[in-house]
């Protein structure tokens, strides 16, 4: 037996495959990982502390900056928590607008996830092809909200605006086109022999472990655990839509990737149904809420399903115009908690594959 020496490798914070400023302190034996210590906080901006000196409405843009790839979902979670605190009833049309813009956000985020994942594995073309469809999604969101990434579209009690003229038809048209594009990715990435060899049986996450470690989103569902908040405890109007929750079998990187892929097809179903239903609804897109928000004393916790997992907002009010405490349960952050054990025994190339398959967003990890 050859005696080998272990050494440390700083994987990041400046590294193309950490998807931001994330650092992994790897202890390697040759190319094999012996131990990995995830170190985060390079993008910590103290959003929770900042929120304590802002009014309730002013916090909405801060939530954008967490997962800026699916900003609408971040807004949505926050406003739901405040609405629960205040007991505001959201108009039906606003709920539909939230679903459509939220699902488009989720789509944009998943497109980035699969695109960057193919880049992590080494296929550059998948990345740019996914960006092509994301660009269309961004254009649609821009037309609706005026902004590409930091949407700030949700308002406490509803959404900022109604859909512009003809926008819903554009979304509908895009949704008609999208299945072909997803087939294209499936052909280029999912079906690829090398891609499958690289991702199958790599970074296996057992369902018990995933539940125990509070892992959520496609990462949890890739392990075969059927827990999607949209189905498990439908918030908003999700109980009105007919869709499936894609599940994986083995809990390896491929299953996690494939879950996102199949989830995109479900997004199409949801959005198409929402568009069909919203056309019959007339009414305001925002409830009557006072100009100055002063929720009653108390606290509220609300969670929704974002593209990365469960985002939860815990808001405490002391009866003033500013929240007493805001805490965000960030899916990317908690999903990383098991990373060390997941990486052990794999090669450096697998580190990239496993980290990419969890689909983290550093703005959210570091908050």
């Amino acid at each position, binding site marked *: 037996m050859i005696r080998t020496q272990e050494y440390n490798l700083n994987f990041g914070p400046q590294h193309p495959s950490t998807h931001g400023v994330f650092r992994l302190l790897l202890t390697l034996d040759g190319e094999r990982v012996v131990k990995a210590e995830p170190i*985060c*906080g390079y993008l*910590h901006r*103290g959003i*929770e*502390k900042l929120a304590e*000196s*802002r009014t309730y409405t002013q916090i909405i843009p801060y939530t954008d900056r967490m997962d800026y790839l699916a900003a609408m979902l971040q807004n949505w979670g926050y406003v739901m928590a405040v609405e629960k605190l205040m007991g505001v009833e959201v108009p039906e049309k606003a709920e539909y607008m939230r679903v459509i813009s939220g699902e488009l956000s989720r789509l944009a985020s998943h497109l980035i996830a699969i695109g960057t994942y193919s880049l992590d594995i080494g296929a550059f073309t998948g990345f740019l092809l996914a960006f092509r469809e994301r660009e269309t999604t961004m254009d649609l969101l821009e037309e609706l909200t005026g902004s590409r990434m930091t949407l700030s579209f949700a308002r406490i009690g509803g959404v900022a605006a109604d859909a512009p003229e003809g926008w819903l038809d554009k979304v509908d048209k895009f949704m008609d086109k999208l299945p072909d594009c997803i087939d294209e990715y499936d052909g280029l990435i999912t079906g690829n022999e090398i891609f499958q060899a690289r991702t199958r049986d790599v970074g296996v996450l057992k369902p018990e*472990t995933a*539940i*125990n*470690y*509070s*892992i*959520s989103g496609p990462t949890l569902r890739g392990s075969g*655990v059927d*827990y999607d*908040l949209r189905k*498990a*405890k439908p918030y908003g109007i999700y109980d009105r839509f007919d869709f499936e929750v894609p599940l994986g079998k083995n809990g390896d990187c491929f299953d996690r990737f494939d879950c996102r892929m199949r989830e995109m097809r479900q997004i199409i179903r949801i959005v198409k149904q929402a568009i069909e239903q919203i056309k019959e609804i007339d009414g305001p897109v925002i409830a009557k809420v006072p100009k100055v928000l002063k929720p009653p004393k*108390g*606290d509220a*916790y609300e*969670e929704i399903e974002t593209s990365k997992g*469960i985002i*939860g907002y*815990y808001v*405490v009010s002391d009866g003033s115009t500013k929240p*007493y*405490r805001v*805490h965000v*349960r960030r899916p990317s*952050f*908690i999903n*990383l*908690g*098991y990373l060390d054990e997941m990486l052990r025994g794999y090669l450096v190339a697998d580190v990239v594959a496993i980290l990419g398959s969890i689909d983290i967003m550093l703005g959210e990890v*570091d*908050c």
Partner: protein
Amino acid sequence: MIENATALVEELGKKFDYIEVNEQSSVIVPADKLLEFMQALKDDYGMDFLTNETAADYPSENKFEVVYNISSIEKGFTIMVKTSVDRDNPELPSVFPIWGGANWQEREVYDLMGIIFTGHPYLKRILLDYDYEGHPLRKDFQWKGGRE
């Protein structure tokens, strides 16, 4: 069979005499009974998913309130469990042995709020620098800048 959060909270209120149940269907547990209660919650009631763990600082009452949101994957509901810690001696048993998901969340609470979780395997600062002084989410934390 318990099918929703309200029913579970009611049931818990009957079973454990040391807990306090409030009207928002959340449960308040004394800190010394926390582990025992949580273990029972996981083993007997199938609350297997620790969604959220955080803390809030109440200097006026000289306490930290630690909040746990625990879900059941199977039935899909969430209950809120709260416990209070003395502000002068912020020590609380870690729930990491029960739910691994507490791993990073407790590190975060320790980092930003300064509550020490005894029994946590690796309680180190996670977001801030290792040699940072103070815990910024405490209400008495002095910070420069800001809007005031």
